[in-house]
């Protein structure tokens, strides 16, 4: 294992791998990524795989649009021999309360002003996109045809392989046990396989970021929250877009292979547990069959779970950490780390290299919580 590095990235998920690739592509040498388990073991490898541009704040819209544009070309950018399976079937967001309808109107106006060509649809118009949709109780829909989903496993491997070709070292089963800080500066990282001396550390450890931050004496206020998900048997293609309801608390999409993947966000206590529960299955079935009655006859094959890392305002925490020179953070995505991953990689690499970022991220810094400048995003599950 390397004993020195230009930067040590803690966390081998999409944020860490995409940043490692971009740093190497921009010319940085000796980039090291540490992953405490196997690649794809964390939150990225367990996620719902959605990629959407329909957001309620200007910054999220800009980040999501840029990320989506990278997804569109990612196979070529990373020269991947496989396929990240990016399917742009759109996202159909379903409003079931009057308050949501008003919010959708505002969101669509904002999105359109930023070049995201989302549209507001009546429930009847939504039927043209999802003919089997049960529109009972749906007041309006918002649709954007360029949203979609990608295969998180292949997206990660594409980044990992491209990064390795550029000289990035990825160490799996390597757990960080300490961060060495001297005189307010990063000096190195302690792991279960020995120490690595470095002047820069990026914490991209998802739900474990608070624990890792504490090793450097920094409080990163994210809490782990279990989210469950299931996949069905593969059947003929019937569902083009990802369907999603914020108030109804459900998302459901059909994979290119024909399987349906669906989940919802239950209110859960802080936990690192990633077990599955029986009650999830029952509630999930009820929610899914409400919107797509034909799912009744489809078989569930598997359920699993993963962790969101929830920040106080459910927005990412990106950028330099002021208290410790050489420390950077990319976490707090609150369930959207995968879709923002490609643009996170670009922006964090620019930030670490001291370059101007192509989209301003200063509002997303860690110090915003101390300043009391939290960001309000109305459109999250």
């Amino acid at each position, binding site marked *: 294992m390397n004993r020195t590095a230009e930067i040590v990235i803690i966390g081998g998920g999409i944020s860490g791998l995409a940043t490692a690739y971009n740093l190497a592509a921009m010319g940085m040498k000796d980039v090291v990524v540490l992953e405490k388990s196997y690649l*794809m*073991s964390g939150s990225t490898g367990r996620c719902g795989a959605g990629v959407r541009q329909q957001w309620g704040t200007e910054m999220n819209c800009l980040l999501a649009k840029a990320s989506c544009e990278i997804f569109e070309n990612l196979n070529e950018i990373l020269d991947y021999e496989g396929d990240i399976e990016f399917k742009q079937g759109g996202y159909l967001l379903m409003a079931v309360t009057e308050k949501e309808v008003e919010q959708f109107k505002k969101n669509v106006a904002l999105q359109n002003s930023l070049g995201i060509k989302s549209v507001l649809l009546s429930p009847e118009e939504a039927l043209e996109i999802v003919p089997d949709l049960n529109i009972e109780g749906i007041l309006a829909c918002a649709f954007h045809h360029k949203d979609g989903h990608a295969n998180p496993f292949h997206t990660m491997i594409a980044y990992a392989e491209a990064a390795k070709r550029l000289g990035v070292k990825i160490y799996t089963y390597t757990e960080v046990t300490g961060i060495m800080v001297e005189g307010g500066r990063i000096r190195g990282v302690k792991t279960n396989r020995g120490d690595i001396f470095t002047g820069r550390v990026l914490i991209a450890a998802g739900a474990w970021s608070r624990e890792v931050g504490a090793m450097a004496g920094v409080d990163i206020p994210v809490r782990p929250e279990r989210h469950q998900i299931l996949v069905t048997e593969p059947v003929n293609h019937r569902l083009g877009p990802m369907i999603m309801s914020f108030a109804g608390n459900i998302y459901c999409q059909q994979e290119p292979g024909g399987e349906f993947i669906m989940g919802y966000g239950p209110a859960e206590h802080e936990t690192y547990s990633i077990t*599955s529960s029986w009650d999830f299955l*029952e509630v999930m*079935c*009820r929610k899914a069959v409400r919107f797509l009655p034909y799912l009744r006859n*489809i078989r569930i094959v*598997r359920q699993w779970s993963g962790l969101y890392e929830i920040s106080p305002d459910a927005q990412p925490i990106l950028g330099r950490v002021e208290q410790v020179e050489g420390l950077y953070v990319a976490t707090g995505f609150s369930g959207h780390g995968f879709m923002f991953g490609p643009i996170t990689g670009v922006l964090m690499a620019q930030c670490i290299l001291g370059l101007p970022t192509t989209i301003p991220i200063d509002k997303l810094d860690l110090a915003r919580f101390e300043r009391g400048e939290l960001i309000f995003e109305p459109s999250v599950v």
Partner: protein
Amino acid sequence: MKSKTVICRCEDVTLEEIEELMEKGYTSMDEIKRITRCGMGQCQGRTCRTLLLAELAKAVKTHPAEIKITTFRPPAKNIKMSVILGGIDNEQNG
């Protein structure tokens, strides 16, 4: 035509594909599962889980008991949503 050995029948994964990944350094069952979908199909790895385990053990020259096996996830077998929603009335339908 080059002969192929199918390991995972649900997801159509061959031994040759798995060997290629092992050569690239992906030597954990969990990684190979996620990249190839071996064991992620309808039967949930009833046949291929042990085959993959044996091949991995051979490749990394260890005893199969030393290799971390992929998680067995619920439900134990495929189950229609209607059966779950119908509860006890549908017990016979599973």
